[in-house]
């Protein structure tokens, strides 16, 4: 089956979904990411990732209520699953483990510049 690997963009969308807690759908996720990281994303890109994450079992979806601005159309709301939460945790743990092993480097970039 499809791998369980989580790409950087997927991780970002998964995180936003968890943060938005119950109010996560394409439009709110675009706004959330824009607010936090100043990345302007398209609706279709988010939608594609959401469908994929649901297939992997990290998200659950259900149809929510309709509003006037949507022309009376319902929205598909997403919720993170336990498995998705676990996956996010695993990623974070892996990162902190790696960070823990990081030596205290003095990043003296000027010396690099001299070289070139």
């Amino acid at each position, binding site marked *: 089956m499809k791998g369980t690997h989580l790409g950087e963009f997927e991780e970002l969308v998964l995180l936003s979904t968890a943060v938005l807690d119950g109010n996560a*759908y*394409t*439009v709110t996720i*675009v706004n959330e990411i824009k607010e936090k990281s100043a990345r302007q994303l*398209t*609706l*279709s*890109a988010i*939608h*594609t990732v959401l*469908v994929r994450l649901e297939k992997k079992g990290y998200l659950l979806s259900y*149809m929510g209520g*309709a*509003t*006037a*601005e*949507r*022309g009376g*159309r*319902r*929205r*598909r709301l997403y919720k993170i699953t336990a498995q998705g939460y676990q996956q996010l945790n695993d990623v974070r743990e892996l990162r902190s483990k790696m960070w823990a092993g990081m030596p205290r480097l003095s990043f003296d970039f000027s010396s690099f510049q001299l070289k070139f």
Partner: protein
Amino acid sequence: MSRNAPPAWIDRLLEWYCSDRYLEEVQGDLHEWYDHNSAHGNRRVVNLRYFIAVLQYFSLFRTKSFQKLINNSNFLSMKSVLLLTIRNFKKNKFTGSVRMINLVIGIGIFLIALIYAKYELAYDSHHERADNIYRVGYAFESKPWAATPVGAGIYALENIPEVKNMTRFLRIWDTSFKFGERQFYEAGGFMVDSTVFSMFSYPMLQGDPKTALKEKMSIVLTESLARKYFGEENPMGKIIALSLDYDNESGEQGTRIVTGVIEDIPEQSHLKFDFLCPAHTMKDSRLREWRNFWVYTYVEVENQDAVELTKAALKSKFVSLRNMDQEEMDKMTAVLTPLKKIHLYSNHEKEYADNGNIFYVYILFSIGLFVLIVSSINFINLSIIHGLDRAKEIGLRKTIGASRFQLIVQFMSENLFLLIIASVLCVFVLTGLEPWILHFSGLDLPLSMITNPGNLLYLGILIFLLQVVSGIYPALVLSRFRPAEIIKSGGQSIPMKRIGLTRKALIVMQFAISLVLVIGSIIVYRQLDYIQSKDLGFEKDQVLLVPLNSSVSKSFEALENELLTMPGIRSISTSSSVPGYRIMMQGLMELGAEEESNTRLLFADDTFNETYDIELLAGRSFQTSLPEGVREFMLNETATKKVFGTRDPIGKTIIASRDTGRVVGIVKDFNFKSLHSEIDPLTIASYHGTRFGYASIKFEPRYTEEVLAAVEETGNKVYPNLPPLSYEFLDDRFEVLYLAESKLKGLVLGFCIITILLTVSGILGIATYSAKKRAKEIAIRKVLGGTLTEMIGILSRSFIYLLLISLLIGLPGAFFLSDWWLQDFAYRIAITPITFVLSTLIMGALILLSFGFMTFKTVRTNPAEVLKSE
């Protein structure tokens, strides 16, 4: 609250492609986004961005057709069939590979045969008007000629209204070309009527087809000949010095201006040449002569109906010119050979090239078809055997509710999948084989699919036919299994009681075809070998030929005298022609007799018999120095019989070609043509005057190098102003005469080996099947003390019966086919029983060996393994 709705047409676009599964949420999101953005910002910009956003949503998985597809049950089953086929192949790699190899060989060989047939049949079809072009000839006593007198063409054009256009090709013999330092003899030239480019499609690279041959001093070259003399320079307008025998009698060099360059003549042409000169350099009266038959005349007619009219008109003209009586008239006809049929169907007298033979096309095509049938039968048998391994799977599928139809669809799809893989492999194999076939058979077949995408069409049709033939039967057989029986026996027992009649018939057919192929291949090979190696009745291995043109023959005496002093040169003879080349046909009659007989007439000097080791049966050879005006003749046995019957011809006076002289000797018959035809009557006449035709130099084989060097050196010394002498070994010339046979021999041998391999794999398959089917029986017999030989006997008995039945069909079939083919040869091998016995024994041995091998494998397994399930 008012909301801003996006333009309706963009919405419709989204609704058009997006599947219902996603439409609501996607459209809702988009509308929300639009409402939010349109509050601030230019309406147009927002609309545009909205449009882009809708387009960005377009992705395969959101489209309607894709959603339909993945929900389709056929797609789902296709996916599982694919998976199953791959898994089955992995599980049983041996049978899988054998099936695949069978298919690849069958398809490959058939495609090669098909492409070969198409290649041979496509000769001369590159001419746009090919369908309406005919070559004119005359047939006497049903012996057709490829050539006509030079006047025939112009007569047809001027007097027969049905003839729209006409071109004559007048052969130019060796001509020396000179441009700057480059000087060679060129053999492939014609003088033609200026209509040549309006009738035939010879694409012109440079020059104007309408005017290229208008000027008397013009010459049109092929691309490669132009490159030979001018390299990268522009050949147009360049002046070449050349000796055209028809230009002037002295053989001095004339000059020609290049007025056109045409593409090289395609390989698939019966008439190939390197250069063309205008025919009207000759006097008009000479171009209207009705004497010798030496010109190739092509006419273009309106339609098929005109052919008979043209023939009749050409015949009556000839009849009135020669004052023929009724009897002579009945024996001759005019012949119009369609341009496209010249290569395969015409092997007339004075044919320009050694044409192909429609028989060879038939043979190769039927072999290809046979191999395809044998391999398909193998494939069918192996498919069934392979299916038996899956009895459990079939039983289970039926139990959980698969209908028979579903199973048939499954097996057919698996079959199709295998066929497609085999075809893809075939494409690669054929592309790789192309240079090999060229190497072994000399045939430059367009096999590669990349350069000839048309072949893919054949492949497609073939896949379809094979799917119908090889897919349906196994699918029907395998889907018939009864689940209860299979599951009860744990998949061990084979739910087929015995081999059905259909399979028996298939096996008999396969055996019979294999037998016919093996026997046929042996006979074809032996016959071709025979005519290539049979003693021709003269020495052909130690003779070097030097063609003599007018400029060489002028001082040939000097060359001859010098050469004769060299070591290794035994004798030199000059003659009007030589064995292996055409010898002219002439009327001959005894002095005082009423009727003329046609014989081949060869002018030769007194050393001819010695040079060619021709045996003298009676009388003597020519005198060394004959007085001026005295002509002597020698006849071969056939000519003696034809002209004199049983009387002794020696000392009789005969008249041939307006010369009168005495017959001085009879020579033994020798084959001066190839062994395709019988020996014609031959008259050898002594001659005086200018030397012409060929010089034949007999040399000792161990001095070959020295002799060649001497000929070159002396040639340069005697003819300082001429190109180097060209020469040719006589046996090479005979190789050329048997080129078609050499090509065929290689292919036949290859096909024979492949047939044997296929047969073995087929028999192995059947043996595997029957050993498996009777595994329990064998186990019980083993327990009761049966020996290996007994068991092989028991297993193979029924197949020996099948082999015997196939012998009844195969042996007579092979006999009649070989006999029919051999009729085409004047000299043929006898069909000996040994070939038949040997082939039968080989087949029998193969069957026993395969059965032995498989039985041995079965017998070696522990009986407990087989019997424990019951």
